[in-house]
């Protein structure tokens, strides 16, 4: 790996972690919005009958998102460790080549052969492991998009239901609005994660 590439890999992995913690916060907001909506719908009683099951949906979606992001976070930590390892292995194998070039006439130069081969192998292994983790992470990120998309559909339904709710119209509409916004934010954060990851993936 070239120096800049290593740098951009570290930055990419770190920025994924940052995006994910934003997604987490937004998911928690949704879950709060769901609780609010439930309370309002309860007070509205008959007028917001259609809205009540929707609040449960919203809550489920928030929970799903939180769980997914938790497991993605673990994966991102692993990815960071792999980046550190790969960086170490690359440094070692570069240094070992330097040793070789400096020891042309040293009596025991060849004793380094095994260590050098091993360093080279470990480097390749790290690279492979990194790639396969990136692929897994991309899949997981795609799966976060599902609840986010569903949330947008639910938000649209909520608006319709809210319009039947008389004096509760405004507060229910606000709930729909915030779910919709949250879904958009998650969508764009996850999209940025995926872009960052695919840049690393294609850079070698």
């Amino acid at each position, binding site marked *: 790996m070239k120096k800049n590439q290593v740098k951009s890999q570290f930055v990419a992995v770190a920025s994924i972690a940052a995006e994910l913690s934003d997604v987490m916060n937004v998911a928690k907001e949704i879950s709060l919005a769901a609780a609010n909506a439930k309370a309002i719908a309860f007070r509205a009683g008959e007028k917001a009958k259609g809205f009540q099951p929707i609040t449960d949906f919203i809550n489920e979606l928030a929970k799903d998102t939180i769980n997914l992001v938790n497991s993605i976070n673990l994966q991102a930590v692993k990815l960071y460790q792999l980046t550190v390892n790969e960086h170490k292995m690359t440094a070692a194998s570069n240094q070992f080549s330097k040793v070789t070039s400096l020891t042309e006439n040293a009596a*025991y130069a060849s004793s380094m052969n095994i260590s050098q081969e091993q360093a080279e192998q470990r480097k390749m292994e790290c690279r492979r492991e990194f790639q396969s983790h990136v692929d897994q992470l991309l899949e997981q990120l795609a799966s976060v998009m599902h609840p986010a998309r569903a949330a947008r559909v639910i938000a649209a339904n909520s608006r319709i239901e809210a319009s039947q709710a008389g004096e509760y119209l405004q507060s229910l509409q606000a709930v729909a609005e915030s779910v919709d916004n949250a879904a958009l934010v998650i969508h764009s954060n996850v999209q940025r994660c995926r872009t960052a990851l695919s840049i690393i993936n294609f850079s070698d």
Partner: protein
Amino acid sequence: MKMTKIYEGSYQWLMFGRDDNKPEKIIDTNQYVVRTGSRCLVIDPGGVELFAPMLAAVLHHAPVEEITDLFASHQDPDIISSLGLWDQALPNAKLHASGLWEGFIRHFGCETIEYVPIQDNGGVINLERVELQVIPAHYMHASANFNIYDPNAKILMSGDIGAALEEPGAPVFVDNFDEHVEKMRFFHQRWMPSNQAKRFWIDRVRDLDIDILAPQHGRMFKGDDVKRFLDWFDALQVGIAV
């Protein structure tokens, strides 16, 4: 990397230093190697930049599988930041270093190398039939710090004690003590924190029979210059920054 043999008997002491390719802003260091029949101890192996030239230099004298021991007098980067690379190069090696510094030194990378913690009161390192004494030199300058003394070769590897900041390519032995003093004064006054610790160390070291005092920077002291150094250091006030 220049090599100087400083003891030759049934085993050898080698000094490595004055590396021509050293980046400019990095302090020049001396590395020492004790080579017995089938083992090899590298004392204060050096910074990460020095790893390749240092290992390459050692490979003239020993194969990697016989580099069985590393010693770090303390935790500084110029002493041991190369550890992570040695860790991947040496198939069976131990690192002897202060137990107090273990959690710090491991930051440099220590997975295959076995960390052998040295207790505060020192100990010994056995290389086949050679027994090296690990002499406590705490607060000189690091809070946990050790020297290596070889009673047979009469060499004291003193770490940062006796260090001097030299021009590149300076000779390896002090040849004019009075002139040399100015290259050591500030280093010792500023880096050594405690007159009490200094007193303790000098009392202990005066009892040792020393031919060569071998610091990690600058020149080595030989014969009468060893005593001159101890007398000079004895009279010096240290810990001047407060």
